């Protein structure tokens, strides 16, 4: 069973009386363990597609299944709970909570999930070690580099043991060294732990590392290639 199964999905905005098809009849599936990049020019519908798959945005038409569960008919509260427990997010601007330390940022998500404090403490330490910044556990984001912050964001995304991680332009704010390190980390997690990653990106370095590349244009899939 695919972790993501999008069937004939449309997203249409009514702008000035003229309908705009941001996503125009897309169907695709992502299996567990894939390392997939969704690419395309600005405005092609990458982010909209990821938002719909991540339950952040509604669809106009079609069906989306995550791990076999249809999410397009869920209420907002159900979707919020679904995102919390089954999807990991990494954003372009890191989006950590600035008043919490790295460790607290990770534990906060687990607290929302109702995980007990002692278990949170153990798992947050494990995750920080896994992303290579155990020594930064008690630092707040403002005292960390962009690469370190994005690693915390990856650790936070994995805190809920999600079915997959959606990463929207995760390297856009990073220098080449930090980008390379982050991609190495994600690739390693994908290879060793089977974590499924789906990226929306312009970054050629991400595209080069992806094993599957879905190209969009005008809200449609124009190519779907698998590098093996």
């Amino acid at each position, binding site marked *: 069973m695919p972790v993501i199964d999008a069937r004939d999905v449309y997203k249409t905005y009514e702008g000035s009386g003229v309908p705009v098809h941001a996503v125009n009849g897309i169907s695709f599936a992502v299996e567990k363990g894939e390392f997939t990049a969704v690419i395309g020019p600005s405005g092609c519908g990458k982010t909209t597609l990821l938002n719909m798959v991540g339950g*952040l945005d509604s669809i106009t038409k079609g069906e989306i299944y995550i791990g076999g569960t249809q999410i397009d008919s869920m209420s907002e509260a159900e979707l919020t709970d679904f995102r919390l427990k089954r999807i990991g997010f990494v954003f372009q601007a890191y989006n950590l909570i*600035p008043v*919490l330390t790295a460790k607290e940022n990770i534990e906060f998500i687990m607290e929302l*999930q109702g995980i007990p404090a002692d278990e949170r403490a153990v798992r947050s330490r494990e995750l920080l070690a896994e992303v290579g910044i155990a020594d930064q556990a008690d630092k707040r984001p403002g005292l960390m580099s962009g690469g370190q912050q994005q690693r915390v964001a990856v650790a936070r995304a994995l805190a809920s043991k999600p079915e997959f991680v959606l990463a929207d332009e995760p390297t856009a704010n990073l220098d080449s060294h930090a980008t390379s390190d982050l991609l190495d980390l994600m690739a390693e997690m994908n290879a060793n732990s089977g974590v499924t990653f789906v990226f929306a990106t312009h970054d050629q370095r991400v595209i080069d590392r992806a094993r599957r590349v879905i190209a969009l244009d005008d809200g449609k899939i124009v190519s779907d290639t698998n590098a093996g």
Partner: protein
Amino acid sequence: MLWHIAWRNVWRNKVRSLVIASAIAIGLLGGVFSYAFMMGLVNQAVRSAIHVGLGSFQVHHPDYPTDRDLRYALDDVDALLAEVRSTPGVVGASSRIVGTAMASSAVGTAAARIVGVDLDHDPEISDLRTKLIEGAYLSADERIPLLMSEKVADDLEVRLRSRIVASVVSPTGEIVYGAFRIVGIFRTSDSVFDQSNVFVTREDLAELTGFADNSASELIVRIEPRESGDAVAAAFAAAHPELLVRTWRDLAPQLQLAADFGGVFGFGFLAIILTALGFGIVNTMLMVVMERTREIGMLMALGMARARVFWMLLYETAFLSMVGGVGGLVLSVALLGWLGRVGVNMQAWAEGLAAFGYDSMIYPEASTSFYLQVAGMVLVTAFLASIYPARRALKLLPAEAIRADT
């Protein structure tokens, strides 16, 4: 962890938080001071009225208010006094003979109530001896002693040791004349009281007017604490339906009105200040929501329920308000503690205040329960002020908010 986040968020912009907290603290200080000043003013007037002349309650012949003359006397006063003194809460009781007199000097005449006091028991119900500015209190050692106020003495152009003649209507309706010597001159904070009363000994006035033994024009009773006075008066009235029993509230309704109005005015003023501060808090929290649109969107995207977002902002508003509220209350307690000892000198308005029975030295008063009520009002204000900004936050769409510029 929501509490942690909210508390730390308060200090993300220290200057802004301190500015609004300071505004809350200073506003509260102003409101609390106004209330305490008003309560001090009114309570002093009530205490002064009770301690100098009214007592907690008075007992009269039912017809006494009609003519207020010596015909309407209470009989068997000793038994009534013994009964009332045995009542719990009663700290003093005394009888008085009260008539209407014209006091004359060589240059003028003044109308006044002439009050014959029991030298042994009147100090239990009246602090008049503490209001003397010249001379001494009434004494059995003096012949026909009289106390009058500075105001009446000035009007009659008399001074200490001067003799005056008082004409009084006796219980039989005759006018009798008696000479008295001024042994003391008093001044209270109530100019109306000062102008309308002269005091002599009960024995002298009884002898002059032929007033019967074991009878009196009135009984005055002092009760502590003040609040229990009404219940004791009601019980006494129920036991003696043939007598007229009136509390200080009945005898001085203007003071009761002032006491009621003082509290309402104080709380009303405080409510206005808190409402104004509430708008300041709303403004601050709206700025917070606007500045943190992306962060709030991120929290929602990660799976934080809208209710939790609401509570996070509510806690943040409450913490911000509490910092200001606690600061304001600490300042208020310190300021009122000091002013409660040294007083607020209103000497420049002394004459006007005295005309209404108010002292010119005001000692602000605020009870612990008042401070607790204020703390509650601050929390309610914080809660109400958080609703609109929190609702704005809840309307954010995560997919849009995480891409906001802020």
